[in-house]
């Protein structure tokens, strides 16, 4: 085998917040650390996070990690693991203050302390009243975080491999992880990055849906690699959606538009929210609005040639009001929907935003399969499922997740590397050869499916059958359809076989990752016959025993989807925190 091998103590795939935070821990401990990234680190999708990072610093008013923990468990609709949630909320003040010392330009109070602002779901005293817990750097928190962490990593001599794409995980016969196979984009050369410890911090896979706020790079590469290597994916049925993104683009239209008098209409021009929420109408809560929109589309009253969206109408508003109060929305609509909302309504659709599930880990960042850590394998950030977000993520906990679990996985890797033999073991070549064969198939394939066609089929299937609001029959059909799409993906071909920065090849490899996530999501969602958090089903009835359709008796458990045979297994939710009493099951209402 002629594949060149590069050797490190630690290899990290992904250079967003979690990858950079872990790399820093390792490099500052003096370990030889490689970070692979498809794009320049400060252009990772973490850059899009605006809201802030939560920590019970109590700089503005009394706060406590235990209250933060309560909010997170409740937000998760009790699917979050309470040991991991306690760990995260207790660590939050430490990692935020650390970040401040790394040079993060947090907004400040007059006395110099970090300014904290209120945020939905952040409450004091176990849900009593709102508390200011979100720390931010203007509306650029993610951007500032990436810059602070990147600069610090450069100082610590982290070795960056920018514009490299990891292709596959390498495991030996015992299942121990030895590193990754990766491709240098500039040359299409394939290398093995062998290491004592490997971390996936590759982010989410929101691009499985037709409408997503995620950047194009969010293709679930770590999830695809893990699934192909026999690692199950946890709780993949749980995705956060926003009711109104521009159809076909995914850019969000703020809920403020409905506050200013925006009206949702179906293909008949009907103000359909009057039927679903006679009092609140278009100002009903997010889940009610999303549910109504999807029902209209499903029942054939969607708009456009594919009847796949509804319209957000503000044409009845005074044009001067639109220009003065909603200038950003007008610009977004003109740019991304080619519609001036003064003259015509905006096409909108519920839009995917965040992935709660992922590679199963504990709060130390160790990947856990069959209750045991996979030797040498770690995951952190959106790709991982610790699980702190459970069925629904609390706002500002995503950046916190990156910091806390980036750091804790870095520490776990340091401990492991210190006890590992000095010399790396012989490299198992089976996985390497399988990875090379995957690339070779793409080079050889003819008379196959075009990448764009297969991806569009996947995205349309996920959006229609497994979107923000789900129906029993649609899910069952969706499972059959996504397995058909998988067959298409198995024959995708590329016309361009050139070697330098071959975007077509990269997009084909990304699609092979996305399809694994799509299958995991559809099959897990079809099986979970309750409603919980972001997984909402029409057939899960709201009864006194099952408030909001949540069925704790049968479904208070994590899903584990296995690629092999599309098997589903389940594991219990960890209800026991590390040091405090359990936060007991309750109906989730705000």
């Amino acid at each position, binding site marked *: 085998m002629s594949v060149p091998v590069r050797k490190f103590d630690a290899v990290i795939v992904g250079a967003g917040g979690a990858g950079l935070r872990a790399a820093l821990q390792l490099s500052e401990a003096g370990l030889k650390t490689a970070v692979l990234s498809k794009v320049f680190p*400060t252009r990772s999708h973490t*850059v899009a996070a605006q809201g802030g990072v939560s920590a019970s610093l109590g700089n503005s008013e009394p706060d406590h990690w235990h209250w933060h923990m309560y909010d997170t468990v409740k937000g998760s609709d009790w699917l979050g693991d309470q040991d991991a949630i306690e760990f995260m909320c207790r660590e939050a003040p430490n990692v935020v203050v650390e970040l401040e010392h790394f040079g993060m330009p947090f907004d400040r109070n007059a006395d110099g302390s970090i300014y904290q602002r209120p945020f939905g779901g952040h409450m004091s005293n176990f849900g009593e009243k709102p508390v200011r817990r979100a720390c931010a750097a203007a509306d650029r928190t993610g951007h500032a975080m990436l810059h602070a962490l990147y600069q610090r990593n450069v100082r610590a001599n982290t070795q960056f491999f920018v514009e490299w794409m990891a292709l596959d995980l390498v495991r030996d016969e015992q299942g121990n992880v030895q590193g990754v196979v990766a491709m240098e984009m500039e040359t299409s050369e394939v290398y093995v990055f062998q290491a004592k410890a490997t971390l996936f911090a590759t982010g989410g896979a929101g691009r499985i849906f037709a409408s997503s706020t995620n*950047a*194009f*790079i969010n293709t679930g590469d770590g999830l695809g690699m893990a699934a192909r290597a026999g690692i199950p994916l946890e709780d993949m049925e749980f995705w956060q959606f926003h009711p109104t993104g521009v159809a076909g683009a995914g850019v969000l239209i703020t809920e403020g538009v409905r506050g200013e008098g925006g009206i949702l209409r179906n293909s008949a021009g009907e103000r359909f929210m009057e039927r679903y929420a006679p009092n609140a109408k278009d100002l009903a809560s997010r889940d009610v609005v999303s549910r109504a929109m999807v029902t209209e589309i499903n029942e054939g009253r969607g708009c456009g040639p594919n009847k796949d969206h509804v319209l957000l109408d503000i044409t009845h508003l005074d044009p001067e009001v639109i220009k003065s109060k909603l200038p950003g929305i007008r610009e977004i609509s003109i740019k991304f929907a080619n519609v001036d909302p003064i003259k015509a309504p905006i096409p909108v659709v519920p839009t995917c935003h965040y992935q709660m599930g992922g590679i199963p880990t504990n709060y130390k960042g160790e990947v856990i399969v069959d209750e045991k850590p996979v030797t040498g394998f770690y995951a952190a950030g959106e790709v991982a499922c610790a699980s702190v977000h459970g069925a629904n993520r609390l706002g500002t906990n995503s950046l916190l997740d990156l910091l806390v679990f980036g750091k804790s996985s870095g520490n776990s890797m340091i401990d492991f590397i210190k006890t590992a033999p000095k010399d790396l073991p012989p490299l198992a070549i089976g996985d390497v050869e399988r990875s090379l064969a995957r690339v070779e198939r793409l080079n050889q394939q003819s008379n196959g499916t075009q990448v764009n066609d297969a991806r569009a089929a996947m995205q349309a299937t996920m959006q229609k059958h497994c979107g923000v609001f789900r129906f029993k029959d649609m899910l069952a059909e969706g499972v059959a359809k996504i397995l058909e799409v998988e067959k298409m993906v198995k024959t995708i071909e590329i016309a361009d076989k050139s070697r330098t920065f071959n975007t077509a090849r990269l997009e084909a490899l990304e699609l092979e990752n996305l399809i694994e996530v799509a299958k995991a999501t559809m099959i897990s969602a079809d099986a979970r016959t309750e409603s919980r958090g972001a997984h909402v089903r029409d057939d899960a009835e709201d009864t006194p025993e099952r408030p909001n359709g949540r069925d704790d008796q049968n479904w208070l458990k994590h899903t584990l989807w296995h690629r092999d045979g599309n098997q589903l297994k389940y594991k219990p939710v960890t209800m026991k925190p590390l040091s405090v009493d359990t936060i007991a099951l309750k109906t989730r209402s705000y």
Partner: protein
Amino acid sequence: MEEVELKRILWRSRRGLLELDLQLERFVAEVLPTLSEAELALYGDVLLLPDQDFLAYVNGAVACPNARLVPMIERIRAAQR
């Protein structure tokens, strides 16, 4: 411009922000093939901007302080109409 440089520029038009991805996708498809070598090099320099600044310039929310880059920012803006 060497092909590798051109293709590197295409890849680097993938960003961390969806709104930039969408606008650059349009620009790359419609305008990039018409650019001169010097203009391509200038676009390559624009791609080095941090995403949040880049988006603010392309959206016209903030004026780009680097006068050299402004003509290319304007070309990207014009491609969205």
